[in-house]
C-alpha cells in the first residue's frame, strides 16, 4: 500500500520522468554508434567481396569456366577469409572452399547471409558468412563471399549489451527513484503530520529539523517561525479581548447602574435630566474607548499600509504642535518644537498625526503648570528620530514596556478622562510603520522616542 502510494508522489514521478528521458537518450546514443560502426563494417565487407567479384569476372570473360574454376581453386587454397563455391545447375559443388552450396534461397545478384561449417583439424565450427550469388551461362552458380563470423559476434555482443544496459538502467533508475522519493516523501510526511496535529489543536507543535540544513529544513524553519508569529498574535488577541472586556465593561456597568438607580425611586424632572445627561456622557466615553480600540486593531492588522504615502514628519509635527499650543499655553506650559530639517518617510498621515497628538496630549496632561514639553525631530543614521519630552512625573521603569503593549493602560490612569489608550495606539502606529518606540526617563519627566526609517 505504501509502495503504491509512492508512485503517486511528485518526487517519484519526477524521478521516473527523468529516468525515462535519461534512458532514452543513452539508448539513442549507443544505437547511433552501433548503427554507424556496424554499417561501416558491413559496407567494408561488401566492398571487398565486390572487388573479388570484379577479379573473378575478368578471369571468366577471358578464360571461361575452366579459367574461373582454376582461379577459385587457387584462391581457396590461399587460406584467406574469402569463401568461394562454384556449382552445377543442381548446386552440386565443382570447386571452392565451401564443402556444399549453402541452404539459403537466393536469386541472381543477391546478397545473402548464411552459415557454413569450417573444418579445421580436430573440430568443426559453424560460422557466419556473407556472400553474393551469380548465375553463369550454362546454369552454373557462383557464390563469392567472406567469413564475417567475428563481425557478427561483435554485433551480437553490442546488441545484447544494449539490451542489458537498458534493462539495468531502467532497473537501477526505478530503485533510485523509489529511494529518492521515499526520502523526500518521508520529510514531507513529517511536515504534513505536524500540520495535521496543529490543525487538530496541538498549537505548540513545531516541525522538527533534520539538521541537513537543506531546503526542507528551511521550509520547516519558515513554517515554525510562521507558527510562532501566529501564536504570538493569538496570545495577543486573548490579552486584547480581556482588556477590551475590561475597558468596555467598566463604563457600561457605570452607565447601567446610574440608570437603574435613577429609576429606583421617583425623581424630579431635574434629576432625570441629570441622569440622562450623565448617561450620554458615559456613552460618549464608551464610544471614544471603542473608537480607540478599533483604531489600534486596525493599525495592528497592517491593512493601513495600503494608504501609505510620502510625508514630511516635520510638517505633521508642526501641525499637531499648532493644534496643541493653545492648550499648553492655557496651562502655562511651554510647548517647544525643535525641527531643523524636513524628514520624508512613508506613512499614514492620519495615524501618525493621531499618535503624535496622543503623545503631546499626554505630555501636556501630565506636566504640571509652568512645566515644559519639547517635541524634537532629528535625522540620525538614516532614521528620523522624533522625541516628545515633558517635565511630568514620567512612567516607572517597570511599567514602561507594559504601557506600550496592545490595549494596555496604566492601572492608575484608568479612572482619568479620555480613553487612556493613548500610548497603546502610539505603539501600534509605530509597529505599523516599522518604527522603534522607546520610553525613557527625562529626570524628571518622560521621553517618548519614535525612530522612523527615512524614505529611500
Amino acid at each position, binding site marked *: 500500500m505504501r509502495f503504491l502510494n509512492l508512485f503517486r508522489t511528485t518526487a517519484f514521478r519526477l524521478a521516473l520522468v527523468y529516468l525515462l528521458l535519461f534512458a532514452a537518450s543513452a539508448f539513442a546514443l549507443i544505437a547511433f554508434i552501433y548503427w554507424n560502426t556496424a554499417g561501416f563494417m558491413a559496407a567494408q565487407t561488401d566492398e571487398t567481396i565486390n572487388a573479388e567479384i570484379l577479379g573473378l569476372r575478368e578471369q571468366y570473360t577471358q578464360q571461361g569456366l575452366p579459367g574461373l574454376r582454376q582461379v577459385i581453386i587457387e584462391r581457396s587454397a590461399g587460406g584467406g577469409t574469402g569463401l568461394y563455391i562454384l556449382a552445377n545447375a543442381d548446386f552440386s559443388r565443382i570447386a571452392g572452399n565451401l564443402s556444399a552450396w549453402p541452404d539459403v534461397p537466393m536469386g541472381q545478384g543477391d546478397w545473402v547471409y548464411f552459415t557454413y561449417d569450417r573444418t579445421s583439424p580436430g573440430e568443426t565450427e559453424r560460422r557466419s558468412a556473407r556472400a553474393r550469388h551469380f548465375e553463369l551461362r550454362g546454369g552454373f552458380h557462383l557464390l563469392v563471399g567472406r567469413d564475417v563470423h567475428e563481425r557478427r559476434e561483435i554485433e551480437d555482443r553490442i546488441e545484447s549489451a544494449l539490451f542489458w544496459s537498458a534493462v539495468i538502467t531502467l532497473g537501477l533508475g526505478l530503485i533510485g527513484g523509489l529511494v529518492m522519493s521515499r526520502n523526500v516523501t518521508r520529510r514531507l510526511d513529517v511536515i504534513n503530520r505536524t500540520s495535521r496535529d496543529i490543525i487538530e489543536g496541538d498549537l505548540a507543535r513545531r516541525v522538527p529539523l533534520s539538521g541537513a540544513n537543506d531546503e526542507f529544513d528551511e521550509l520547516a524553519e519558515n513554517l515554525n517561525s510562521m507558527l510562532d508569529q501566529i501564536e504570538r498574535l493569538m496570545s495577543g488577541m486573548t490579552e486584547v479581548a480581556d482588556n477590551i472586556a475590561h475597558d468596555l465593561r467598566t463604563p457600561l456597568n457605570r452607565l447601567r447602574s446610574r440608570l437603574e438607580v435613577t429609576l429606583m425611586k421617583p425623581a424630579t424632572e431635574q434629576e432625570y435630566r441629570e441622569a440622562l445627561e450623565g448617561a450620554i456622557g458615559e456613552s460618549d466615553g464608551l464610544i471614544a474607548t471603542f473608537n480607540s480600540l478599533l483604531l489600534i486593531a486596525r493599525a495592528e492588522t497592517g491593512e493601513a499600509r495600503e494608504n501609505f504615502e510620502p510625508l514630511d514628519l516635520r510638517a505633521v509635527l508642526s501641525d499637531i504642535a*499648532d493644534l496643541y499650543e493653545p492648550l499648553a499655553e492655557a496651562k502655562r506650559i511651554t510647548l517647544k518644537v525643535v525641527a531643523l530639517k524636513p524628514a520624508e518617510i512613508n506613512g499614514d498621515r492620519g495615524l501618525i498625526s493621531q499618535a503624535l497628538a496622543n503623545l503631546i496630549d499626554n505630555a501636556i496632561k501630565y506636566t504640571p503648570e509652568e512645566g515644559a514639553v519639547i517635541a524634537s525631530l532629528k535625522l540620525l543614521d538614516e532614521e528620523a528620530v522624533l522625541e516628545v519630552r515633558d517635565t511630568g512625573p514620567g512612567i516607572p521603569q517597570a511599567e514602561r514596556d507594559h504601557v506600550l503593549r496592545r490595549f494596555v493602560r496604566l492601572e492608575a490612569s484608568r479612572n482619568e478622562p479620555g480613553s487612556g489608550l493613548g500610548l497603546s495606539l502610539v505603539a501600534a502606529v509605530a509597529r505599523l510603520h516599522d518604527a522603534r518606540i522607546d520610553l525613557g526617563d527625562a529626570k524628571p519627566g518622560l521621553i517618548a522616542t519614535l525612530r522612523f526609517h527615512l524614505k529611500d
Partner: protein
Amino acid sequence: MLLESVASPSMRLLIVEDDRDAAAYLMKGLKESGHVVDHARDGVEGLALARAQGYDVAIVDRMLPRLDGLGLVQKMREEGNQVPVLFLSALGDIDDRVKGLKAGGDDYLPKPYAIVELLARLDALVRRRQPEQIQTKLAVGDLELDLLSRSAARGGQAIDLQPREFLLLEYLMRHAGQVVTRTMLLENVWDYHFDPQTNVIDVHISRLRAKIDKGFADQLLHTVRGAGYCLRAVS
C-alpha cells in the same frame, strides 16, 4: 447659549435606513427639530422617493438591503439628482469615508453619532448648497474678514490673527448663524479625522474669542451647550 435658540430653517429630509428603531429615533429627533422627514427602508425605495420628491438633504445609510448606500447615491448622481447626501455608516474607516465621498456623498458621519452633530451638518449642507458668489469679504455684525488681504477687523479696529485662527474664523463666518460642532471644525479647519483626547478646539475658540469679543459689549462667538459653537450678531 442653548441649542434651541439657534434657529435653523425647516428642511425636507429623506432618511434611507434599514434599522427600524434607529430610523424611528432619528425621525423623532429630526421632526422635533422642526424638519419634515420621509423614510425609506432600502436603497430601491430610497431611490424611488428621491426621484419623486424634492429634498433638501438625503441621509443615507452605507449598508442597505437591495441597493446599498454607495450604489444608491451613484445612481442618483448619474440621473442628475444633486440633492446633498450625508452618509451614515457603521463603517468608520478613513477608506470608507473616502469611498463615500467619491461615490457622490457630501458628508460622512460614522455611527454612533450625536443627533446635534447630525443636525449641524445637515444645516451646513443645505446652506452650502445655496449659490455662493465668490466673496472677497465676509461680515458678521461689525466683524469683518478680508479674504484677499487676509486681515480681520471689528468695529474698524484691526485684529491680529495667526494663520490658523484666520481659517477658524473664516469657517465660523461662512457658517454664521449655524451651529458648528467641534468635529466639524477639526475636520474642516485642521483636516483631522480623529478625536483628540482633550478638547483642544475649546482652547482655540476661547483664544479666538478673546481676540474678537474682548472689550465689545455684544458677544459674537457663542458656545452652544452640548453641541458646539455659533458665530452670530445680535439681531
